[in-house]
């Protein structure tokens, strides 16, 4: 009985000491392509995204549903800095952002600079 209680306490303590540590996702941009076109992440925990742009031109990492992307295809914002899911990554630089996906969902990330989406700067994020 004492032994069973000790195991339960250990499990509880382990749970208390294991907060939802941010998961890290690294994406590199090279020759106007994302290094990965599909990212799987757990829902309900903070995920830290590090986007590194190896190109000598600016790029974007815009995450959202198709309606959001449709708006940005027609948008005129030259730079995105105010939202954590909309990043402008200047040439040869790195940007980091942390996002939590409350439920399972599927989103797309794209670069909406002229011609970049058509060139292949598209990826899918799945939160499970």
């Amino acid at each position, binding site marked *: 009985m004492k032994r069973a209680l000790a195991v339960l306490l250990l499990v509880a303590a382990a749970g208390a000491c294991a907060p939802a540590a941010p998961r890290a996702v690294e994406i590199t941009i*090279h*020759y106007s392509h994302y290094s990965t076109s599909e990212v799987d992440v757990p829902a309900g925990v903070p995920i830290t995204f590090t986007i590194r742009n190896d190109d*000598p*031109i600016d790029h974007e990492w815009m995450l959202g549903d198709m309606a959001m992307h449709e708006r940005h295809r027609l948008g005129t914002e030259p730079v995105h800095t105010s939202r954590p899911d909309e990043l402008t990554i200047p*040439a*040869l630089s790195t940007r980091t952002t942390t996002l939590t996906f409350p439920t399972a969902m599927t989103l797309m990330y794209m670069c909406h600079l*002229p*011609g970049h989406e058509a060139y292949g*700067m598209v990826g899918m994020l799945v939160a499970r």
Partner: protein
Amino acid sequence: MPRSVVFALALAFSMLTLAAPAFACGGLIGPNGAVNLLRTTTFVGYHDGVEHYVTAFQFAGGGGKFGSLTPLPGVPSNVEKGGSWTLQRLIRETQPIKAPVPLAFGAATRADAVEVLLETKIDALDITVLRGGGAAVGEWATAHGFRLPADAPAVLDFYADRSPIFLAAAFDADAAAARGQNVGDGTPVHITIPTANPWVPLRILALGKQANDPVQADVYLLTDRKPAILPLARGANGLTLAYDQTASKPLLDDLRSDTGMGWVPANGWLSQLRIDTNASTLSYDLAVDVQGHSPSRVAAGLESPGSTDPTPIALTMLAAAMAALILVAIREQRRTVLA
């Protein structure tokens, strides 16, 4: 391996705002990413180890600035205003032909920084010759107002790996208008590059274009004798040899009488190469061997720099194999005679 000389056709990267100059040898990319579809014309003459590259920047109205970036195979010894009628005279020489006939580079050291080698101004054009790696040249271009398209990083590296020399041309349409240039007026530019063989970058013509966008260009090539070119002008690959014969004396005399064209020899061979394809097919450049032997596959973009160019080796092996076969045949013949 001898380095071919390059010349590039103007690639047009859009710069700043609403301008509309037409580069005689480049695909234009508008400020909104749209591509202006033009047939471009370039003249590449080669004599006494020097490539003479003549193209024209045509003022098509509008205002603001526009730019082009051209990869070069070597450092030009001179960049000056070109003659007035060279391109037009070549077109007139070859137009009567109605039915087109279908038919070493080494690995460059990638530079991390840009070095400005030459700056000059020709009419409304600000010309800068740069040495640097693809990323460094891209950074320089962006910092100077060029808006590079999505495929620029890969294309700049493609050329920088072969030769880290680029010519940037910024066209000031407002200055052109102030100079009294009318829509349609061209500014010819003559670039002189000492080199072992001429070379014409073609892939860059597809810069910024969608896969199915058409690319059309004419390259006039004047050499002392009939050259060998690579890739072969097969027609199916978008490259045809539309004119290929001894240059006429009246043509050579006319070319020689144009400004800066005194180098034109008394005899020569004129080739007109016509590029008529789409952007996804145009993955090659034009490599030339003025001796008529074997152009470099690396220069043609068919192989990466640093890989062994198999052409000379293959030819050597073929020659050795043929020599061996001849020896065997002679021995067999002797045996037969002796028997």
